[in-house]
């Protein structure tokens, strides 16, 4: 099977600024790839461009075998139905009448097709994912009234309810407390083990990378500056260069973290 996502010679600019400049990036089938980098590195732009939500000035992005930069609207919609996407943040406003269950159902709306209502099987799938993520007690609550952690889990459920072939996650644990963050990391690990789902995980914090993540792509100023095993890519020198000299990367049991250098030195080997 061909790689679910390939970017070749992609250039995206905003005014005079280059947001993304990637010569070659391939996400192999069944892998979990972490995309890291400081603010403005181009991580979100990469995900949005991969879905055809952001126009590219040059190059091609092959999503599930088709060049999404040259697809018509109908073909693009068909491709997107095969992808699960969790955006950075969608909080909802006070007058948004949608319940949590209705928001999760958006994940299977495109796949159902035009002129066809969601059927009982679709709603059963929605309910199953709500159950899996511990959201059943809130299913009839307004989405806007949920906590940040519940909303993130709801968007993850929505991304999975359409039974995607590729998962694109944009900081799924942003703004969450430690317990909620660990819950997301555990879920991602379980999903990867269970389904072997190809996943691109954009994040700021190394702690969000599940143990199943065997490859990290490091972006800076729109370019790939390193690509490989997490412990290799996130070397002490690179972390210090990117985030500051007072920080160190710690790797243990497949998990990773960036801590102040003084803590890394004090910790037992």
């Amino acid at each position, binding site marked *: 099977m061909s790689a679910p996502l390939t970017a070749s010679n992609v250039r995206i600019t905003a005014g005079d600024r280059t947001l993304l400049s990637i010569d070659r990036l391939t996400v192999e089938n069944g892998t979990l790839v972490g995309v890291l980098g400081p603010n403005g590195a181009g991580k979100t732009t990469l995900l949005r461009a991969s*879905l055809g*939500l952001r126009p590219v000035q040059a190059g091609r992005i092959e999503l599930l075998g088709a060049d999404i930069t040259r697809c018509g*609207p*109908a073909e693009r*919609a*068909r*491709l*997107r*139905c*095969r*992808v699960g*996407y969790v*955006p950075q943040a*969608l909080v*909802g*406003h006070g*007058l*948004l*009448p*949608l*319940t949590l269950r*209705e*928001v999760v*159902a*958006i*994940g299977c*709306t*495109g*796949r*159902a097709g*035009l*002129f066809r*209502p*969601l059927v009982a099987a679709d709603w059963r799938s929605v309910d199953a994912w709500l159950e899996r993520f511990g959201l059943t007690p809130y299913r*009839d*609550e*307004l*989405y806007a009234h949920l906590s940040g952690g519940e909303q993130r889990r709801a968007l993850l459920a*929505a991304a999975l309810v*359409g039974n995607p072939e590729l998962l694109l996650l944009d900081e799924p644990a942003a703004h969450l407390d430690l317990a909620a963050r660990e819950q997301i990391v555990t879920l991602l690990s379980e999903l990867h083990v269970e389904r072997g789902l190809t996943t691109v995980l954009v994040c700021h914090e190394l702690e969000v990378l599940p143990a199943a993540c065997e490859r990290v792509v490091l972006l800076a100023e729109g370019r790939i500056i390193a690509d490989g095993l997490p412990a290799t890519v996130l070397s002490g020198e690179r972390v210090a260069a990117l985030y500051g000299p007072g920080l160190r990367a710690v790797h243990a049991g497949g998990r990773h973290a960036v801590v102040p250098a003084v803590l890394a030195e004090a910790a037992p080997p």
Partner: protein
Amino acid sequence: MIDFGFWLPVALGGLLSGGSSGLLGVYVVGMRIPFLAVCVAHAALAGAIFGALAGLAAEHLTLPALTAAILTALALGRVADRSPAGDANVALGVLFSLSMGLAFLGLGLFPVLGRSDHDVRALLWGSLALCRWRDVGYMAVVAVALGLFVLLFGKELRALLFSREYAAAAGVRVGLVWALFLVLAAIALTVNFQTVGGLMIYSLVTNPAVAAALLVRGHARVIFVSVGLGAGVSLGGFLVAALTDLPTGATIVLLSSAWVGAAALWQRRRVRCRAS
């Protein structure tokens, strides 16, 4: 003695206008673009004014009004997500000022050309009491078209309510559904605006939907309550006005505003009860 032959089309017109505006309002309020009603209504007015200036008779002004309203709605759809702020309200602000400018320019041309602006001034305020069976027919067609649209595209509209970009990422045909929604909204607003006037259409689109969102949760429930409230305040306002000799439009607007106030109080009370 009530003259049913005169008042029945007025009551039915109010009912249909309130119901279809309530339905439209669920999406207009949910997508946070209530200014759409004002913007499209004024574009329709500008269209009607230039239609009148071109020599069209009063009964034929609907055509240029509809054309201007649809063009404005499509322009909004085209530029909304590309405006500098990436916000439909920014695009609405620009389009509203443009349509207002054109409308006032057109109004200013009537005396210059030595023509009467009586027909278009009547449009500016509208009058439910002048609603006749032909208007009721147009309103019924619009109400049925809106209902069918929501029935056919309900799940896509639900996704659009949440976020157009998120819906697009989920594989929803956002461009198609959004364009159809805007065209239908333009037609509904123009047809209703010509009978009930700009202010009343704005309140009928906004207030019942806001009250419904405060009272119930869930897409389908909000639709039912908003349509019911829209139709109810129109008919209720008309009856109150008829019994008290107050102006119909103002009574309906105030009644719909009172519902928003009551719904906000009820929601506040519900939140307090839950907390205690």
